[in-house]
């Protein structure tokens, strides 16, 4: 009796194994913050990836019929946890492509690991310049997001074009992110034959920024370049209001990360900041399709104002489509082949733009300054500046 059962079991197992081989899912890993302050940001990346995965699977998957499957891990915005999760997804789950989250320090911790394990790693959010410019050869890291170095150039150009800025004042949060953007902004200004009229730092929990801002005003600053997370950025706006100083503020995307209008109060709408995409206004056919898919899949989304943070959804959506194209170009789920596959992508009509040869051995960032959208808060919604005028 026992022998018969064993025989049957063996047969069933064989059938199952044989049956799944043809359509064995290709796993896509995601490591981002899924809890705590940045939970919503992590969720937006998830949604962007999932909608793209659903589209691809509905059209027959990748590599002649294999569906994609998302495997997520929470890094709790902690580099050490990110590295543990990356090891698990690479060696145990055997994902084909790994996606990163929003924290630059977490991505920076994962970068050496993926380059060593020859695992393609795509960043849909974290903007730190050295994530993609990591010096490794071969470099397995790609990005579909803003990049600090380019954001700094874009901030300078935007301020010159829209506010006629000549005397730049830098307000940088006192942490590595502020430090790296300070360097980037000084370099961007130098390219224009300029230098900052004044440059100040501020701590994340500083209550009164009037002293710093007074120094900027005394130096004759006509436009402020701001880099800081949502809380510190709000403190800058509050202190400006207290001083009664009306000065244009051009910012990195920090304000987009929370309840900026509540924190900063009146004057918050005067801060113009970088985004890579906006679901407001007239949409391309791809935009219409993505909004419809999000509405159908997630009951809490009834319009563009619910697709937030928009950059997470949009970057992740395009990044996943590009990764799927790279897998198909590679013809396998082998890391080195997929890396080459990214370089072979000729064209892809995405959400953010029409990508033409987005990656090459020299260029690992698919987006450039021309792809950025300038936005501001109107009430609690992030609206492109062009539409809010």
């Amino acid at each position, binding site marked *: 009796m026992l022998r018969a059962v064993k025989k049957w079991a063996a047969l069933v197992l064989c059938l199952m194994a044989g049956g799944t081989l043809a359509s064995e899912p290709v796993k896509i890993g995601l490591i981002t913050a899924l809890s*705590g302050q940045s939970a919503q940001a992590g969720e937006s990346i998830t949604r962007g990836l999932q909608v793209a995965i659903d589209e691809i699977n509905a059209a027959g998957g990748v590599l002649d019929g294999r569906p994609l499957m998302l495997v997520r891990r929470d890094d709790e915005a902690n580099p050490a946890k990110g590295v543990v999760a990356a090891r698990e997804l690479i060696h145990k789950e055997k994902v084909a492509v790994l996606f990163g989250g929003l924290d630059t320090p977490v991505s920076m911790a994962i970068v050496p690991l993926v380059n060593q394990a020859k695992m393609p790693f795509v960043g849909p959010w974290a903007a730190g310049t050295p994530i993609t410019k990591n010096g490794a050869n071969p470099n397995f890291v790609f990005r579909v997001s803003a990049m600090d170095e380019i954001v700094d150039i874009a901030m300078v150009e935007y301020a010159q074009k829209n506010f006629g800025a000549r005397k730049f004042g830098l307000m940088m949060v006192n942490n590595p992110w502020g430090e790296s953007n300070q360097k980037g902004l000084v370099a961007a200004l130098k390219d224009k034959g300029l230098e900052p009229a004044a440059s*100040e*730092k501020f701590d994340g*929990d500083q209550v009164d920024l009037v002293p710093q801002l*007074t120094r900027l005003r005394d130096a004759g600053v006509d436009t402020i370049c701001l880099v800081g997370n949502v809380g510190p950025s709000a403190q800058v706006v509050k202190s400006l209001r207290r001083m009664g100083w009306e000065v244009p503020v051009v910012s990195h995307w920090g304000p987009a990360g929370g309840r900026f209008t509540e924190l900063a109060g009146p004057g918050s709408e005067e801060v113009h900041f970088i985004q890579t995409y906006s679901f407001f206004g007239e949409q391309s056919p791809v935009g219409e399709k993505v909004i419809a898919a999000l509405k159908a899949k997630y009951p809490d989304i009834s319009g563009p104002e619910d697709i937030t943070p928009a950059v997470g959804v949009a970057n992740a959506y395009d990044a996943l489509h590009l990764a799927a194209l790279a897998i198909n170009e590679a013809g396998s789920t082998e890391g080195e082949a997929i890396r080459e596959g990214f370089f072979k992508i000729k064209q892809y009509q995405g959400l953010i733009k029409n990508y033409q040869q987005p990656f090459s051995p020299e260029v690992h960032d698919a987006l450039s300054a021309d792809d950025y959208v300038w936005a501001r808060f109107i009430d609690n919604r992030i609206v492109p500046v062009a539409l809010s005028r």
Partner: protein
Amino acid sequence: MDIQLVSALISGLGMGSMYGLMALGFYITYAVSGTVNFAQGSSMMLGAVLCFTFSQTLQWPLVPAVAMALLCCALYGLVVEFLAVRPFTRRGSDAWLMSTVALGIVLDNLVMHTFGREPRSLPSSLAITPLEVAGVNLAVYPLQLIIPVVGLSLALVLHWVARHTRWGTALLATEQNKDAARLMGIPIGRAIAGAFALSTLLAGVAGMLIAPLANVNSDMGTLFGLKAFSVAILGGITSPWGVVMAGLLFGVAESLITVTLGSGYTHIITFALVIVALALRPNGLFGRAAVKKV
């Protein structure tokens, strides 16, 4: 005088009295028991977070919201004393140094998980329109003038209570000689617990006053607590007026250094000044050396 210096001065006095209030908390428990709650920053955060929760989330009117938040802060002070101080001092151990820090970290994380990590804003009608004098914007809110007033008044009240009430005399007696006080029938245990409750309550007041100027979140008190402790030591932890004065000095120094030399130098110079001051006067600017009579 330059208008920027005036506004920096007022802003510095406001911040300084916050440090002073929290440092007073250090003074009170140190005077009575020779111990402090090293996580005063967390107590301050608790005041701000509870005030936000009662007044914004639960929509209570301001007075009961503030009263309830202060009551909870005082209760938390009792918990600190009961869990993190008493078990160790009873055995003559100095482990309360670590356990108060640990309890503060526990509180920070509890708040992070319940209140959320996202910073919130506590609005106040006193922090909307900046003050103007003769048509010149001083760049300070009325609240920033009220903060030093509240700070100094509380120091004054404490001074009066200590000198003129039975409870105050009991505290002073405990400070001077525990054994003699116990023999005189003063309930030492209760006096120490009361000192911790009061100390945490003062930190809570500081948290509530600062909240409309800052953002409310679970780690808002960390740096504050550290600075307040420096202030307590700078002032000489044995003198209530000393710690308040040191708080004001520290706040004004910070603000003036930022406005004259720039923010890059603020922490470097203020903390360097603290070290220099302590090197010159090891018992603090206003403190007395502890004399051990044998």
